[in-house]
């Protein structure tokens, strides 16, 4: 028997009783609808999360200085600066899975332009590689600072849109001078807008400058990473021409060269607060972390079993936290889907059993004129599958409508997912097969004589 003839037969049998068919498929409609809604919402939120993470820079790895411990007393993360700019250069050069790396020196200080002032959220001293890692390459205005600026400790900076708005109010800031702790910075560029990050922090409230400039002219310290906000208030007077300004007023008499030579301080030449690196691809993040760990072990002379003096973070944990809500929602919907699919399947089985009983004589007749048991089995199986598929089609519409509603009312990000439609069709066919089989098998096992005599 040709398949399309079987299909036509099944369609005719179903359209004979459309209301019954519709009610029967209700469970499947709801189940498939839930699956579709779940997958569309899931796909939407995962895209949204990916976008957020990409806005922070794709494949970012953060290397933080480690915990200092002395005699069992931990001073907490970042209590010593163990990372040097050379570490950063080495990471960029020697780790094959790392695309680039940039040091970060943090400061916190007031910006002054004319009569206006502003304390930016972030004031990072870094290298041009930072722009690449954070995906800030496309400056809205101006040019980034250069390696030469870093070597010379030039007083140039890039501003985020928020600072531009607060200090310049629509004016172009390029070429203007702003003052930071009495050091004058020339604005060379404006960063592209990034919006708030996942924690609601404004990513546009940022000042970027060469790390040497921040380190030696703003924080003015080579030894410790003292609290800059506190330091900033004790505003030591700097002359603009001073090459190394911002030296804190000494409480104690300065150490002479001889004293310094006698008591070498356990610090490296220069330290940075963080190193920001990016892996060449998402898959390579774990490799990159491994390579960086090995490299830093070697450079910091950390032997096997000794505690690390650095910490490495990537975005996976943050991603996990962010996905957990949607995962929970998804699991809930999945439960609803499972239950209604099973209920729907049982409904299909029930109606197919009724149909087989109602059509006993037809089955007997078909057998008498030469239908084999397998023909009958196929006919009823195809009918069940067609029933489930039409339920599935309605379910796809319902689910899509539902997720669109969620998008409109709750402003959740949703995304049409072709995979969901494929899954829905597969689920429908499977249900039809699973729950249609028993009635179809029963039909195929009828005895033609008894079936023909059935009243």
């Amino acid at each position: 028997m040709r398949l399309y003839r079987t299909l036509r037969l099944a369609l005719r049998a179903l359209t004979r009783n459309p209301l019954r068919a519709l009610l029967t498929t209700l469970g499947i409609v709801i189940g498939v609808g839930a699956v579709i809604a779940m997958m569309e919402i899931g796909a939407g939120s995962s895209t949204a999360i990916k976008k957020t993470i990409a806005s922070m820079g794709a494949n970012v790895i953060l290397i933080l200085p480690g915990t200092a411990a002395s005699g069992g007393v931990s001073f907490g993360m970042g209590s010593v600066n163990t990372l040097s700019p050379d570490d950063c250069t080495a990471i960029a050069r020697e780790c094959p899975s790392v695309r680039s790396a940039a040091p970060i020196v943090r400061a916190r200080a007031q910006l002054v332009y004319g009569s206006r002032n502003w304390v930016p959220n972030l004031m990072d001293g870094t290298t041009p590689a930072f722009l690449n890692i954070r995906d800030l390459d496309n400056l809205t205005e101006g040019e980034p600072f250069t390696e030469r600026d870093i070597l010379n400790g030039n007083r140039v900076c890039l501003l985020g849109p928020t600072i531009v708005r607060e200090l310049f109010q629509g004016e172009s800031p390029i070429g203007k001078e702003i003052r930071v702790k009495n050091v004058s910075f020339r604005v060379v560029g404006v960063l592209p807008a990034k919006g708030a990050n996942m924690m609601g922090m404004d990513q546009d409230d940022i000042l970027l400058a060469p790390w040497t400039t921040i380190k030696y002219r703003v924080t003015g310290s080579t030894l410790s990473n003292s609290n800059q906000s506190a330091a900033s208030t004790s505003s030591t007077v700097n002359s603009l021409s001073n090459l190394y300004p911002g030296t804190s007023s000494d409480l104690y008499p300065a150490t002479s060269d001889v004293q310094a030579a006698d008591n070498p301080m356990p610090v490296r030449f220069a330290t940075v607060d963080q190193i920001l690196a990016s892996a060449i691809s998402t898959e390579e993040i774990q490799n990159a972390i491994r390579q960086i760990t090995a490299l830093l072990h070697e450079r910091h002379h950390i032997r096997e079993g000794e505690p690390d003096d650095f910490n490495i973070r990537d975005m996976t944990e943050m991603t996990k936290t962010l996905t957990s809500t949607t995962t929970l929602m998804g699991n809930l919907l999945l439960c609803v889907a499972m239950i209604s699919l099973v209920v729907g399947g049982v409904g299909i089985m029930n109606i197919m059993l009724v149909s087989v009983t109602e059509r006993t004589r037809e089955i007997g007749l078909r057998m008498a004129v030469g239908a084999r048991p397998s023909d009958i089995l196929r006919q009823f199986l195809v009918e069940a599958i067609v029933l489930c598929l039409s339920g599935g089609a309605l379910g796809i519409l319902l689910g899509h409508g539902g997720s669109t509603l969620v998008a409109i009312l709750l402003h959740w990000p949703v995304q049409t997912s072709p995979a969901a439609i494929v899954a829905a069709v597969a689920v429908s066919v499977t249900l039809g097969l699973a729950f249609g089989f028993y009635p179809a098998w029963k039909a195929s096992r009828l005895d033609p004589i008894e079936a023909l005599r059935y009243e």
Partner: protein
Amino acid sequence: MPLIELNRINKTYHLGDFEVQVLKDITMSVGEGELVALMGASGSGKSTLMNILGCLDRPTSGEYWLDGEEVSRLSLDQRALLRNGKIGFVFQNFNLLPRTSALDNVAMPLSYAQDNPSEREARVRAKEMLERVGLGERIDHEPSKLSGGQQQRVAIARALINRPRILFADEPTGNLDSRTSVEVLHMFQRLNQEDGVTIILVTHDPNVAHYAQRVIHIHDGQIAAGIYDAQAPKGEEGQA
């Protein structure tokens, strides 16, 4: 060699501890092109015999040769194939598919045919067959919109669609009035004489049996009055 040959056919039903022997040592034969009537009292086993002859059922014991083939031990699928290709059935209660056009009813057995004709070919053949039984005008009618005689003619068209060698009719006129019965019986005669279809029909009614060339009487599961030629009734189209 006759088309149908039964050799000591027995059929026993088991009802719990009971054993009911419905057919007892039936031996008979029907030649190609015969029109045979099976007669007997109610419960004598006519339908049981017809089911065995029509390969719907299997005898408990005995041999059944159909067209040179021993068919009593064939599998379900093989018998289905045989029924589809060589045998046509006409029932007392027509057994048409409800809410299905006459054309689709007639074309239905073609879906199970081995040569598997295309949809268009199937429609053409079904239409021809309906025209042959005089229903060319009513191919789109559903059974509920046809008279009893018309329904039975649709059923005959359906039985003939695969050009069978043998037609089995179990009380084909049982639900019809005498006038339409005569029409149906004339149709059987024409099929038998013009197309050479072998026809075996079951009836209670001696008037119906008169249309046959030969009557086989069954009594309590046995062939009773032997085999005789019904000479007079042939061609005598009296009140059936």
